């Protein structure tokens, strides 16, 4: 090879290498890096738990930072520091979730880091008892808090054990979404459906369940009280009327009884009759 040409080749080769290295160092300098707290699991010791994010390197000054939980911005967390914190006071089940600290820049896209705060599910709402009539539809539901979102199962207490619900009649419908589940039962059957149902929430940390009682009223249920009250009323009316008829001959003239004879010794009979008619009521 001609010596000049070899030198040129080495030069261009080293320029390429150098350029590649430069590019790499420039691009790695462009990417901001954030150090964040570790993923953690509730419950934690102490009254407070702090999530921390530190913007360790950035090519330009960042604008501001804020926190997000489960994809939604947490209000009043915007700040200007590189080192940003979010404090959880006495963290409980509903504090669990996917947290993200976000740094915004003027000329480049924002950077973020995620911190997972996991916990076992806690069932916060359920219907303790449901009373429905035969043939109507019943709705049992359960709400929970915790992260990750649990898997829901419904079971029925049968013969001393919680079993899977037998849906051979096709009347049971389960709809679950994140932290909420519903069990619909249509065309309630008074023989088979009443009993204890339980909703079970399970995630990778733990599981919980709660019971609900379903009662089905028969169509004929109100009949007994109805007959009872009717009997009481008839007895009372009979007593009152009999008491009145007994007192009648003594000192009473019943205006409502046209057939009854007027028993007075007064010679003013005529006048009294007129008196009665004129002054009605």
């Amino acid at each position, binding site marked *: 090879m001609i010596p000049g040409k070899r030198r040129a080749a080495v030069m261009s080769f080293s320029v390429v290498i150098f350029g590649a290295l430069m590019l790499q160092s420039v691009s790695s300098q462009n990417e901001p890096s954030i150090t964040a707290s570790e993923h953690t699991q509730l419950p934690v010791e102490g009254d407070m738990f702090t999530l921390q994010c530190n913007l360790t390197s950035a090519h330009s000054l960042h604008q501001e930072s804020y926190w997000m939980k489960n994809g939604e911005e947490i209000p009043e967390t915007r700040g200007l520091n590189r080192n940003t914190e979010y404090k959880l006071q006495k963290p409980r089940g509903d504090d669990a979730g996917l947290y993200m600290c976000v740094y915004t820049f003027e000329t480049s896209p924002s950077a973020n880091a995620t911190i997972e705060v996991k916990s076992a599910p806690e069932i916060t709402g359920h219907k303790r008892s449901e009373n429905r009539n035969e043939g109507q539809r019943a709705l049992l539901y359960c709400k929970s808090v915790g992260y990750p979102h649990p898997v829901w199962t419904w079971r029925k207490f049968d013969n001393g054990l919680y079993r899977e619900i037998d849906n051979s009649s096709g009347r049971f419908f389960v709809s679950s979404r994140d932290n909420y589940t519903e069990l619909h039962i249509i065309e309630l059957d008074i023989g088979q459906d009443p009993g204890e149902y339980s909703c079970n929430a399970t995630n990778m940390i733990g599981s919980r369940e709660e019971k609900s009682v379903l009662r089905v009223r028969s169509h004929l249920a109100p009949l007994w009280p109805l007959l009872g009250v009717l009997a009481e009323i008839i007895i009372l*009316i009979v007593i009152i*009327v009999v008491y009145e008829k007994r007192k009648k001959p003594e000192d009473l003239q019943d205006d409502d009884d046209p057939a009854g004879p007027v028993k007075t010794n007064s010679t003013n009979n005529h*006048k009294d009759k007129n008196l009665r008619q*004129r002054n009605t009521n």
Partner: protein
Amino acid sequence: MPPAATTNLGYTPPDGGWGWAVVFGAFISIGFSYAFPKSLTIYFKEIQEYFDISYSQIAWVSSVMLASMYAGGPVSSILVNRYGSRPVVMVGGVMVSAAMVIASFGKTIIHLYLCVGVIGGFGLAFNLQPALTIIGTYFQVKRPMANGLAMTGSPVVLCTLAPLNQFLFDSFGWRGSFLILGSIVLNCCVAGSLMRPVNKNALPKPEAEPSECNGAAAEEAASVPSANLLTEKNQSESKSQGCMEKLVDFSLFRHRGFLIYLVGNVVMFFGFFAPVVFLAPYAKHLGIDEYSAAFLLSIFALVDMFIRPATGLLGNTKWVRPRIQYFFSFAVSYNGVCHLLCPLANGYVGLVIYAVFFGLAFGMVSALLFEVLMDLVGAHRFSSAVGLVTIIECGPVLLGPPLSGALVDYFGDYKYMYYACGVFMLVPGIFFFIMHYFNYKRLDEEQRQAEAVDMRTCEEAMELKTSPDDKTVHETDG
């Protein structure tokens, strides 16, 4: 002594005895009439979900029931004038019962409007008027007491029905509850069976207006001839009224006292019920929790329950009875002042104090409401009077709460509604004071004139009697 107009009964009301059983019957009837529509609101949420309708549509059931109850007043009066209290109350009880039973099988909300609203409302009207009327026939001297006791039925039955309805609803659902309520309402029939028509001939001695005259002329058991003297007067009077009394007595519109009562009441009712309706929402608006807000209503009902008989007792005393209209005017004005001061109450303690005073005021007005009407027009015409009054009051009673609600929505603040209600009650109160002052003066004049006339006729009778001819005495009887 009560004005002369009320003593023309032609007989002495028993003022006791079976009268207290009648008061008990009236207690039940009045209680159901006022408390039943209010207690049905417990079922509204479930019915609303069942028929898939809005809240205002279900609230109409209550409004229709109340409207029918007030509109049925005149019909009730006509029937009472014709047949007496007892049959009307029993028919009313059966009507409400049938309405509830049919409603329990209803398939649409229209069925509920018709059954519970219209038929039920009319049935309750047939309970209310006769119950009030029959008290007037049984009591004269102790009438305010009897009225006060009978009107206590409303809070007592409400306090009983509210938890009972809740229990029935939990056990049987709304359909089963309506069925059972239909049978419970038949207790009105029991109450009606107690309302024995008063025996007008048991006590032959009538109220003697010229008592000195009677004392001189009736040495033997000659109270019967003097009764005839008075009954003749009544007969000639009632002859002219005979046809009119078959239907509604429109001549009441020429009666001074009745007109005063009517005008004042129409204005008053705009502001009467609204504060009760809005007590709990106002409490919640101030940040008080639901149970404490409901407890306010319980305090109100409890105070109301005890103040009604107390007011009746007070109205019966010899200081108040002759001028009972002033007592009523005071009660109405006191209501107004209470509402005007309500916005000053802050916090739960302030509202509790307000609830106590409001309960006092509400109870006083309720206990006296029909007593003063009886006092003005007399027991004869009371039936027609109350019928006319209720149908005319129908408007303000129905419009009052929605108008107040509109005020609250427009201003976003409850205090303007309370000011408005306060004014609506204070103005009639003052109106009553002024008008009754003049009315009493006129009535006293008329009383003096009537007494003068009676003295003259009495003297003539005495002259005839002192003549030794017995035949002449009997001739005056003819």
